[in-house]
């Protein structure tokens, strides 16, 4: 695989307000190679790809294409350099045909302004044939295709634009094993045609199967590159997660009380099966698994957002029947959801409103607001959680990510829960704020409530949880205790390696 280097990214740096997303990242891509870009969730993989695709502008560093300096300012520039990105969420118009999707925005018309359907279908057919995609009919509606086939259409679209660098972001995340096999055959074909691929995934076994070279990044920093042949599972894992822990985590407190909450054989109507765990006072039970492994789904069921098919939820010895969030809240369960903007906050409203929305029934009788109690509660939680704001009438929209997360937390603490569910509590907030959240989690656990903590960041799971429940593909793999809570053990369980 001694092709010439066609893409060279050198010392790429990208800052967002308050966060350095990428620092000194370099990547060399050779002709006809499959290059894995490896890193944990939030390591900066997507940001790097967005820089390459012209969606973000780097704040430092240079991109060379064929040895010449390239400025990729827009998506059109990226197209000009024949770079295509296949995003994890496919961007196809479901009600249009395969051909229409492939040539979207580039449809040729005859002199009457009518689209040359027949010619375009012919062209689409040719592209498909070249890459062995005979089973996809160009006139089919895209929404009638399987996910795998849709992915092929996306790739065909890239090929129709003469792409020679194709970025695939987690292409196998929604494919079955058989479909993965097929995708790999296809990637093999692309390699033969001297097309280079940047392959993003955190499934190590796939990377060993299909990739030639690996670049690992972590926390926006470049860790290293090497040929696949010269490395192994263990080395990659430690490169991915082996950060130095700079004392951002508080000491664990091992003072657990009696059991307060228990889930038995919980199953969803879809895929989630047989979840069992118990939770004690003062305990943090961590949930780890890859994105899509079913962690969030468990919490949504417990909180009454999604229906339960089977199983029991038991609070302090009493079985609960929960069909909506209101009942869960009344039972003493609180959920800080994964996405604070979509599910956690009413952004156009102020802090006061957001904190008290879940306890309205305690504060308002008819049209009479208990102003004194209201202000006390808001003030109490704002100072306890150290929410920084000039006024409680500040719109939540104008707060920083860390402060927004604290408002969500305050809203849920105001309901005085016995079980607090935290789904990715530190997503998208800076290091300082993360540290504060960690401290808060510890303090909260000290007040006697039990916490269910979902996080994709291993160090958080390792350093905050007293026990760790590991999920893989909608199944509970096991619950790790004390000494078993180590990176390698957790990752091995989560990946099934």
């Amino acid at each position, binding site marked *: 695989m001694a092709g010439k280097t066609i893409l060279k990214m050198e010392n790429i740096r990208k800052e967002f307000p308050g966060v350095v997303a990428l620092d000194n990242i370099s990547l060399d891509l050779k002709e006809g190679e499959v290059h894995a870009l490896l890193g944990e969730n939030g390591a900066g993989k997507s940001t790097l790809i967005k820089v390459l695709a012209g969606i973000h502008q780097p704040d430092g560093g240079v991109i060379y294409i064929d040895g010449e300096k390239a400025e990729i300012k827009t998506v059109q520039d990226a197209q000009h350099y024949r770079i295509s990105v296949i995003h994890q969420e496919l961007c196809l118009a479901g009600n249009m045909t395969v051909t229409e999707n492939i040539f979207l925005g580039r449809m040729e018309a005859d002199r009457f302004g009518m689209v040359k359907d027949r010619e375009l279908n012919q062209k689409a057919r040719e592209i498909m044939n070249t890459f062995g995609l005979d089973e996809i009919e160009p006139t089919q509606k895209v929404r009638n295709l399987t996910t795998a086939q849709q992915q092929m259409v996306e790739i065909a679209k890239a090929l129709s634009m003469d792409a020679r660098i194709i970025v695939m972001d987690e292409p196998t995340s929604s494919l079955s094993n058989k479909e993965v096999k097929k995708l790999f055959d296809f990637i093999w074909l692309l390699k033969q045609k001297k097309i280079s691929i940047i392959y993003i995934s955190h499934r190590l076994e796939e990377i060993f199967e299909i990739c030639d070279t690996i670049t690992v990044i972590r926390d926006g920093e470049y860790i290293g590159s090497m040929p696949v042949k010269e490395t192994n599972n263990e080395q990659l894992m430690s490169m991915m997660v082996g950060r130095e822990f700079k004392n951002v985590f508080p000491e664990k407190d091992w003072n657990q009380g009696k059991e307060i909450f228990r889930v038995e054989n919980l199953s969803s109507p879809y895929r989630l099966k047989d979840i069992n765990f118990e939770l004690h006072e003062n305990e943090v039970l961590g949930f780890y698994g890859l994105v899509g492994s079913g962690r969030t789904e468990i919490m949504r069921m417990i909180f009454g957002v999604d229906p339960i098919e089977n199983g029991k939820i038991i609070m302090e010895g009493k079985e609960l029947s929960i069909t909506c*969030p209101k009942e869960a809240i*009344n039972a003493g369960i609180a959920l800080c959801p994964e996405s604070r903007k979509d599910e956690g906050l*009413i*952004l156009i*409203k102020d802090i006061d409103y957001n904190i008290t929305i*879940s306890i309205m029934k305690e504060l*308002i009788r008819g*049209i009479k607001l208990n102003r004194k109690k209201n202000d006390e509660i808001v003030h109490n939680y704002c100072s306890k959680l150290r929410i920084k704001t000039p006024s409680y009438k*500040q719109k939540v929209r104008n707060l920083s990510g860390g402060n927004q997360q604290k408002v969500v937390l305050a*809203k849920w603490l105001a309901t005085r829960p016995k079980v607090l569910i935290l789904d990715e509590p530190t997503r998208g907030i800076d290091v300082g704020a993360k540290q504060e959240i960690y401290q808060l989690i510890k303090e909260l656990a000290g007040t006697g409530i039990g916490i269910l903590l979902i996080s994709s960041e291993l160090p958080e799971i390792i350093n905050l949880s007293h026990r760790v429940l590991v999920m893989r593909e909608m199944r509970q793999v096991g619950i790790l205790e004390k000494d078993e809570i180590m990176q390698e053990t957790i990752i091995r369980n989560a990946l099934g390696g």
Partner: protein
Amino acid sequence: MRREKSKTQVESSNPIVRFVKENSGIIIALMALCIILSIMVPDKFLTYNNFTTVLRSISTTAIMAFGMTFVIITGGIDLSVGSIVALSGTLCAGLISSSWNYAAAVIIGLAVGTLCGAFNGFVISRTEIPPFIVTMGMMNIARGASYIYSSGKPIRTPDDFGSFGNGYFLSIPIPVIVMTVLMILSILLLSKSKFGRSVYAIGGNKEAARFSGINTKNVIWLVYVLIGFLASAAGIITASRLYSGQPTVAQGIEMDVIAATVLGGVSMAGGVGKIGGTMIGAIIIGVLSTGMNLLKIPSFYQMIVMGIVILLAVYLDVRRKK
């Protein structure tokens, strides 16, 4: 220093000061409109009589606009209000003409209109059908029912029934009094009650509202029940004013109602708006059309002016909020 400044920006303890600040744009527009009309037709515009006429003419629109404010804040819309006016009006008039007790006839009229709203709300909150479509369906259903009930002809009522819609109490037109009472109740409901807070929460972020333990389905349902009730109240006032229940009445009134609401600063995207703003929006529409009548502008031209004013007002509002 900067902290202090932003504090005063977001907070203002006096509700009237806050109200004027939030609605400065349309208040200035309304004042400008009044000043211009006072100069152009001083003898006719600046009279107590004209003042009460304007208020009475907008009373039914405003009453429905209070309900529309709730609906639009949740992110919905209700196109069926005009037809509910016709249905409850003809029904009430019909019952009276077949010598029912007035109070009973009014209650039945209100009940049927409220039921129409309840149907809208039930379907909207329980299915995926958009409010626009559901209420458009009800617009036809209620209008059709009103035609059937009245056989397509106006139903006369005794003159003393008309004294309600045309009468005065302490030299204030009775519909204006009704409007004022309903306005105050709506303000309290929207700004002070749990229900009102839930309405804003749903319009601001429906998922977050649901996660916060709000029964979003029931709140949405109730919002349409409320507008159904208010529309049927408007229908009974209209029947009384016309001394008859007319199946053709209030065609297209939903557009005036929506216009008043939007002029008043209620965002079509949901989550934002107040009853006070809607009231001013309705007054602007009333003053504008009365003013144009006083200036003897032909009604076809009036429509064009009205359209431009609405577009302009909303454009300015959108720009101000950027």
